[in-house]
């Protein structure tokens, strides 16, 4: 394995990319406290850009056959991480929830 810095970069870029893609969805955009629709085109472009730059880092770090495995696994880990972080935020508020049942 070569250059841990490149691989760390690949992971960080993947996380940034996945976070951007997640925030381009209304449900998650509202989770971070924003109102109104998310800037979808911008966030999606940034998201895919992050993922592509992550791929570039992987290709620079290793033999192409190795990078072909490292990159999908890295973006999968990034997606899982973003999902777990989002799960700690309050859920998107919809209509006001019904009062709890009285026992």
């Amino acid at each position, binding site marked *: *394995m070569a250059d*841990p810095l490149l*691989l760390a970069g690949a992971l960080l870029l993947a996380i940034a990319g*996945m976070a951007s893609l*997640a925030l381009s*969805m209304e*449900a*998650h955009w509202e989770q971070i406290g924003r109102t109104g629709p998310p800037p979808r085109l911008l966030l999606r472009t940034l998201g895919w850009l992050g993922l592509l730059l992550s791929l570039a880092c992987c290709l620079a770090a*290793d*033999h192409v*056959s*190795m990078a*072909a*495995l*490292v990159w*999908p*696994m*890295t973006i*999968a*880990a990034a*997606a*899982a991480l*973003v*999902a*777990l972080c*989002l*799960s700690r935020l309050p*859920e998107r508020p919809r209509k006001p929830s019904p009062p*709890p*049942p009285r*026992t």
Partner: protein
Amino acid sequence: MFKTFRLSMTWVHTWFGLVLGFVLMACFFFGSLSVYDREIDRWAIPASRFEPQPMPSFDRMLEPAFRTIKLDAATRAEAQTRSRSPLPETLPLHEWGAYTTHRDPVLQMWSGFELPDPKDPENDHAFGSLTLDPRSGTPLPETALKIGSRFFYPMHYSLHLHWMDLGYWIVGLAAMAMLAALVTGIVMHRKIFRELFTFRPRKHLQRSTLDLHNLTGVVALPFHFIFALSGLIIFANLYFPVSGTLLKPLAEAHEKAEIARSGLPEHAAGIAAPLASVDAMVAKAQRRWAARGMAGEVGLLSIHHVGHANATVSVYRAGTDRVTLTGEGIHFKGSSGTVIREDEAVSAVHGINDFITGLHLQHFRHWMLRALYFAGGLAGCACIATGFIFFVEKRKRQHAKQGKAGARWVDALAVTTVTGMLCATVAMLVGNRLLPADLPLRGDWEERIFWSVWIAALVHAFWRSAPVLQGRIAPAWREQCWALAALCTAAVLLNWATTGDHLLKTLSMRYWPVAGVDLVLLASAWLSMLAARRIGRREPKLAVDAAQGEPVHG
């Protein structure tokens, strides 16, 4: 059978997933452990806790060690059954092999002997083996079971069920079920992209379980699919044994052509001749690899027709720098050291096959990719476990009202396969530290501990799952989580007590195999404790709401 395509695929996903899920848990869990199988070996065999070494000198160290290899009693008895006349004291030598990887401090050596009078001429070999410390040339005791590479690793593809290769077939069926479950899961999951990042742990159990099931399944979908598929491809010859049966003439013709082309003799010459310096051959091989831009260490050294005039020495490269299983084997004439042949580049199909196999077997050196593989495997376990929990949650209230016990049995089996299997695994490590060092058949006792703890977990799970009949959570989950936490902690403490290699020491020495196992054990203890407490808090709450017939929010 079903009104729509989607309904039929849902049925396949539910029932193939449920029935084969129990087997798949074992495959994924022990497969994940197999990523670090040799590190687990280091933990289990303290005498092997040193840094990996390159292949030592054959002439000075390996040859005398090879000559000490004999058949053990069990192998000799088995070989006798394949022989028409009684076996002589020393059998004629056929081949020697030595194998090492970049993660193995110790060297694996074996000696192949020929049966002089076999019943079946195609099945006339018997093997003795030796594990060597390459720093000193002294052998390690063969009774020390390599828990990682010789127990956990074969468990994941054979379930240690060798009668008629039954374990391999069950795992194969489970792998097909995994592929089916992934494809049918996609068909079922309508909002696959929109809900990619959705995980709502504060919703009621059924919803949050389904969220986690979808997350772990979708995020690592290519990983799960390709690992199941590559595993099947690796054993394709077993599942479709056509080369020995239907297509036998084609296979045999091909084999004959290969032997003729390779220039490597099939049978011993019968004339004695000494072996030239193997070290010189190894050095020549390494120079040739470097000249091709593929410098590397020796992974496998193999000598055929030992002691005969037409002996051959084959030197293979340890392919740690790429995914594809490569060998770049160079073959020498044993008596003179001249090169007979270098392995040429393989065909495209062969290359694809080697890549897919290499991707699964992971001989490469890349700690980050391995760590991601481990995480991926555990994600697969989480996917299957949440699948079980969702199945039970969805049906248990309904079954409770109808007086059916289906949900209870599934829940008990789920406990057995999730927490029970984990308890058995860690109990084996605890046993490894507790059993006396010179106990004969120590490895067999460690295996017995594993299986008996698992059976005990099964009995406990079935006994302590009655509340599911009223639509509540079985206390078995919480109790086994506590047991697991205790076992993990015990294993780390026992490692310290019996070997002195406590975490602060191994971390400061940066001896990652042992430090890593201890850290994972401690993390597991902490997570099990968290889980036990959280389940314990939910148990009465869900009981109250179950009585009212309402799913819980929060």
